[in-house]
């Protein structure tokens, strides 16, 4: 019998879901309900991602999700893992999926939050005025995502990509905002945002 650690189980589950869903994506005209089930494979049944480096979508502003799905479908935002799922999305799917995720309650990921890093992140965030675009509650607005209760590992990855100009197709304001910050600064910002 194969014993799999709890840590790895969701990852294997997720991979299975990705493979399963990639096959499904090839079939024509999926219903919105099928789409939601498909998204849940990686982003969590309740929109809160159980998988490392996969973002939570619960409570994201509807415009943000619509915009990102649109840009991925268009080929502007190049996220390889998402490509099979977005290519056949209709405008009505964009509306339905973005509306669906915006209504789900966000939950913390359960990753450990380091109080010292939160303190340091709070200082950097005050200087960068993160709350201006992401709102003081960090819950996002229109094209700007919610970062409160987002996964620490995903936030760290996204911030690093912004700083290193590796996030092709995303708005550039974030690259300007985090220009010159160290890796440690970015980890601190991730802990700060996730802790909200």
């Amino acid at each position, binding site marked *: 019998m194969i014993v799999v*650690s709890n840590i790895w189980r969701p990852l294997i589950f997720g991979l299975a879901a990705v493979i399963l869903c990639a096959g499904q994506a090839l079939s024509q005209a999926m219903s919105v309900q099928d789409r939601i089930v498909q998204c849940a494979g990686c982003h969590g049944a309740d929109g809160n991602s159980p998988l490392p480096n996969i973002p939570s979508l619960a409570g994201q502003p509807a415009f943000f999700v619509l915009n990102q799905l649109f840009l991925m479908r268009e080929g502007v935002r190049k996220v390889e893992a998402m490509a099979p799922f977005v290519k056949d999305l209709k405008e009505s799917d964009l509306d339905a999926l973005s509306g669906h995720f915006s209504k789900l309650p966000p939950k913390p990921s359960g990753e450990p939050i380091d109080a010292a890093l939160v303190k340091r992140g709070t200082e950097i965030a005050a200087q960068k005025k993160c709350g201006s675009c992401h709102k003081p509650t960090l819950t996002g607005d229109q094209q700007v995502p919610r970062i409160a209760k987002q996964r620490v590992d995903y936030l760290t990855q996204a911030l690093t990509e912004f700083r290193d100009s590796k996030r092709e197709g995303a708005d550039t304001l974030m690259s300007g905002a985090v220009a*010159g910050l160290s890796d440690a600064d970015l980890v601190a910002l991730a802990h700060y945002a996730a802790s909200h």
Partner: protein
Amino acid sequence: MSSLMSCRHGLLIAGAIAILIAAALPAGAQSPPGFSPMDKSNPAASKQDEGLKPHATPPTVTPVDKLPLDKIKLPPGFKADVWSSGHPGGRSMVMGTKGTMFMGTRVIGRVYAITEKDGKREAKVLVQGLTQPNGLAFKDGALYVFAINKVFRYDNIEDKLDNPGTPVELTAAYNLPDTVHHNWKYVAFGPDGKMYVQVGSNCNICETNPGIHGQIRRYNADGTGMEIVARGIRNTVGFDWHPVTKELWFTDNGRDWAGNAGPEDELNRVTKAQEGASYGFPYCHAMGIPDPDVKRPNPCAGVILPAALLGPHAAALGIKFYTGKMFPNSYQNVAFIARHGSWNREKKYGYDVVIARVSGGTARIEPFLTGLLNEKTNEFYGRPTYVLPMADGSLLVSDETSGAIYRITYNGKVANN
């Protein structure tokens, strides 16, 4: 299981070591060459509202009956119509010699081609999936497309709009910096036949390398022979040449997070004798305001001050001089300037088209197209982005938010005033 666990521990330890190493290095150590070390914004000191953020641009089509045409106000005798619509995020405009209008965009990543068929205008997506292809220029039948850090040339483009094929890539020849912020391009061929290219400052406010960022450059069309025409620019995304003096005039966007009053956007002139000089960023803004966050002794020493101010946070973008025959004579050689409208200001400002009456090295700014900003409710209905005078003397104005182009005509009886 035990091997999986030890693998996990190994990863954690490796991660911890990586974080410790990163923490020990100074912040600038990992910045690539020429990258600004740190944005020096101090928003807390600006005392501005917490809720200010850039406005979203809808990626989907705005129906014709939802366009804000009825809001537009113009001087007596002028009239606005919808020239085309259904091209979300459309911004910059260049006209091909066979009558195709090409439109660049930012986040949506498309280049549109607008053609006329049976008296109806049709917009189609010519290229998609680029990173902010705002910079377009047309010469000898070829469309030049400047995305962030990518340069393409589509030869004989108007003969193959249905299948543009693989372009000639000029990215390596132009060798532009690979930073992304403020590096969506504005480009244009000058009267000297050279390609003029914007290179923005990759921050809100920071010390830039004047050899790399914050410039207007000039190249041969093939990307060779680079010269720096102007430095110390925060971000210009519009320039044009005066029809008589042939001097280069450019708009420049003022910094954010230094208060609601500005510093104001600038209208600048580049004289032949001053080529390569600094226009002040990041030390000196507007008519000589020292920066509150990036300081140096005598911040404005040697800096070329603007010909005119274009308003606080107004986002002055497109500029074109007018030499057409349709508008009254008093409009000869004036510059039309599209002001995209503020985000970093509590009371919104701009969202209009102004004219600059140029005299020597100064200019007087007057309103032209208004009505898209409701000052009472602090909301806007559209965002004028670029302007383009047409061969018949009419003026096109693109509206990025609505994905539309408006055509301004004049039929007043007070012509030649």
